């Protein structure tokens, strides 16, 4: 765990959960940015200054940015939350950079969720593969269903979660969700971006909500209003730091 030393876009101190080694860094963080603030608008890219990282640069990886958008439609409040991914990298040992996309200028407060592996390259010539564990949801009355692209890979220090959704039973589409992830490490606590779903009121981005994983249990309180009504299917894609290695 570490905290940022400064940033150039007017956010406060940012707390990171981390696993670092000489080949890569896995970072988890969630913070807000006001895209209408003068500091944000003056920055060509978001720069977060941090204490020495174990790597001096990284490849470019995606981080999620989302906004809340609640509207009253036909007398009902509906969730039109949206978002996308931004390009991020470790620029040097003390700087994490995140793309500033003009689409979000002056959109007010947005949330950035970092669940990323910042890798380096040219580290030898031994491509490896790992065994993945297919994700099984345990629910008393099953109502959530995964696609065949739902799995995790558990490293000693982190977990990679790829969670492709298939559908949920119609009666549950607007209710809070909860499911135990069978055999998923219980030492992961994180908010993750729940990406996808049609977003008719914000057509330039996709629907994006937040889910929570703790003690091997996946929960999601609410989601985009039209989830369950055809493609595109939502998913979670996250590198998550395990707590017990700290």
């Amino acid at each position, binding site marked *: 765990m570490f905290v940022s030393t400064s940033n150039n876009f007017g956010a406060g101190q940012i707390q990171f959960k981390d696993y670092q080694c000489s080949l890569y860094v896995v970072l988890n963080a969630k913070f807000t940015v006001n895209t209408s603030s003068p500091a944000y608008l003056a920055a060509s890219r978001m720069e977060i200054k941090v204490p020495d990282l174990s790597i001096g640069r990284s490849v470019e990886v995606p981080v999620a940015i989302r906004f809340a958008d609640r509207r009253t439609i036909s007398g009902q409040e509906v969730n039109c939350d949206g978002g*996308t991914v931004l390009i991020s990298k470790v620029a040097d040992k003390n700087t994490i950079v995140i793309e500033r996309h003009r689409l979000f200028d002056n959109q007010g407060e947005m949330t950035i969720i970092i669940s990323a592996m910042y*890798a380096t*390259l040219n580290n030898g010539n031994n491509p490896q593969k*790992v065994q993945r564990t297919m994700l099984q949801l345990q629910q008393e009355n099953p109502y959530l269903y995964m696609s065949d692209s739902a799995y995790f890979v558990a490293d000693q220090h982190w977990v990679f979660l790829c969670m492709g959704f298939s559908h949920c039973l119609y009666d549950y589409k607007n209710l809070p969700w909860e499911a135990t992830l069978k055999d998923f490490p219980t030492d992961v606590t994180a908010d993750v971006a729940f990406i996808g779903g049609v977003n008719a009121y914000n057509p*330039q981005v*996709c629907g994006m909500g937040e889910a929570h994983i703790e003690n091997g249990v996946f929960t999601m309180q609410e989601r985009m209003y039209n989830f369950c009504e055809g493609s595109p299917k939502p998913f979670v894609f996250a590198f998550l730091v395990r707590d017990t290695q700290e």
Partner: protein
Amino acid sequence: MAAWNTLAKGVKSKTILGEAAEISGLNLYIKLNYNRVMAGYSIMADAPAALRAVPNVVYEAAWVTLTAVIIKGIEHEEMPFKLVVRMSGGQSNGVSKGWSKTVIISPGMEEDWGDADVTKLYFSTIGVQPALGEKVFLEMYWLNTTTGVTGLDARDSITCITDEEASIEGLTVRFKFNEMDLYEGRASSVSDYDLDFSTGIAAAYIDAICTGGATEGYSSLYLNTAFPEQVKGPFNCVARSTEANGNLKVQLCTVEVKNSKNYSQLSIATIAGNTGVPSHVFGVGIRYE
């Protein structure tokens, strides 16, 4: 020109005989802009405020074989520095000083995670590959692309050896794919690709543009050269649409390389999220069995 004259007063120069000499503002203007233009930058009309020092090139080794010309272990320098590489054609092994025979192979490149693979540039510039046992002279220096100032030369002479000998000496072929010859028999729908398996762990890196094939959500790149056995197999990663209407919708993709009888193939399939193209697929994915 007054600013250039002022700047030139603080610059040390040498005559062709190696004697210390002053340089005029005009000469400095030409010298710095020559370097910038060679590297693809525009002419700088205003004199830079100051000329900061340029680092020396630090590297581990360089190899010339019948199939590869590569410099390894180059210490990274952030932009605005770019690497200038000069090399000679094959010279007799009895020649000990052949640096005057070098020509520019690359006027300004970014080293690639410590590598400078100049194989294609070398063969296209020199035109003739060196024979086994011949010596190739190498000069490298950093260019500050903002000011046009160059650093000191790092010089080396390398004897052309076989790939097997280079392998024994420690040259490893990195599993990185970005400039392979296209197979013309099928229409490719992936461009600007960079696929790299050298993370040192069970992860691959991809950066590519998908333009979409005949099947929605499915883009492919068809190539003439087979992928090595070690890099076959899938991984998942994220893509973001880059449509002309400015959409930024997100996709989950499966990336896979495979070899067929007539071609090899990099396929990128959207398996969740939006299927809009073109899309920019980028990031790290875990490779699984």
